[in-house]
């Protein structure tokens, strides 16, 4: 990623962050309006409102969707602020959880479950946040291209032997796991993932027995 790319990414980030604030204001107003309807309903006599229960159920559905919308905008906002500081300190646990939320739709379209495994302790490194998210997303995409429907992808951040790593593990419903693993490094997206990892000062490998793409990251990058 060159200087022009960084400027463009920062521009997209700034605009997206601004829009998430606007959407958040819309959600806040819908939440208060729905809350006001609940308040009015609470002071309405049952016998004067024959459809009170149906009304309550509908308000509950609205509340659920507001919460969903809020979670989405919250994550989008955090993602949009990723280019603000680069390199920056990030916790691989948090980045993995955020990526699961942001990429869940892509997995859902293929009927694949996407999850993050939380490492027991914080796994903090100084890195380029946007490029790291790209690397995670590229890894997910590579597996999504190969995995069958109803499979599962799990991001496992961890620290082993002083190495910082995110394992992108998959579980498939067919017995062709090894075939999938062997196809990963010949995937069109593999080269791009390798370049992203070089930019991050790290490396990428596959572990056939563990059914994982392994993203090795340095604990510190200073450029």
């Amino acid at each position, binding site marked *: 990623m060159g200087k022009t790319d960084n400027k463009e990414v920062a521009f997209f980030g700034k605009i997206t962050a601004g829009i998430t*604030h606007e959407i958040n204001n819309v959600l806040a107003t819908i939440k208060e309006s729905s809350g006001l309807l609940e308040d009015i309903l609470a002071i309405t006599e049952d016998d004067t409102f024959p459809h009170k229960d149906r009304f309550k159920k509908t308000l509950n559905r609205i509340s659920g969707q507001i919460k969903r919308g809020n979670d989405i905008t919250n994550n989008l906002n955090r993602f949009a602020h990723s280019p603000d500081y680069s390199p920056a300190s990030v916790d691989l646990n948090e980045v993995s959880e955020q990526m699961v939320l942001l990429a869940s739709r892509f997995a859902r379209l293929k009927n694949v479950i996407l999850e993050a495994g939380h490492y027991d302790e914080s796994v903090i490194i100084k890195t380029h946040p946007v490029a790291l998210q790209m690397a995670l997303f590229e890894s997910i995409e590579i597996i999504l291209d190969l995995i069958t429907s109803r499979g599962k992808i799990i991001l496992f951040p961890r620290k082993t032997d002083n190495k910082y790593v995110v394992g992108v593990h998959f579980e498939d419903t067919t017995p062709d796991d090894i075939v999938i693993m062997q196809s990963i490094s010949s995937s069109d997206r593999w080269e791009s993932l390798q370049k992203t990892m070089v930019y991050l000062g790290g490396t990428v490998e596959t572990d056939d027995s563990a059914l994982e793409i392994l993203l090795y990251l340095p604990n510190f990058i200073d450029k």
Partner: protein
Amino acid sequence: MDPLKVLLVDDEKEFVTTLAERLELRGFQVLIATDGEEALRFFDTDLPQVVVLDLMMPGLSGMEVLKRMKAIDFKIPVILLTGHGATKDGIRGMQLGAFDYLMKPIDINELISKLDDAVKSVP
């Protein structure tokens, strides 16, 4: 007991009028301002006991309104409203004398609890 007088300040008119109605249903007396200048006028003439102030407003920013209110009456409790990822702004506001901050969308019960705490905090 007289109702607690709250000044709500937010440029999102639909949001602030609906929130005001909800607080009124719970026995609060509510004043509404949709910009910083109007907020300072109400602050001067209507003497609210607590202020709920949005930080992100066009014109006079919430932070500037906070500073001016505190310069007039340093004891007035102010609860700030912030957006996503604006924890730093909330903390900065508290360093400038705000009582606390809440992230939008807010929870009405949490706001009421903070309003009560804010009033109790005034010596």
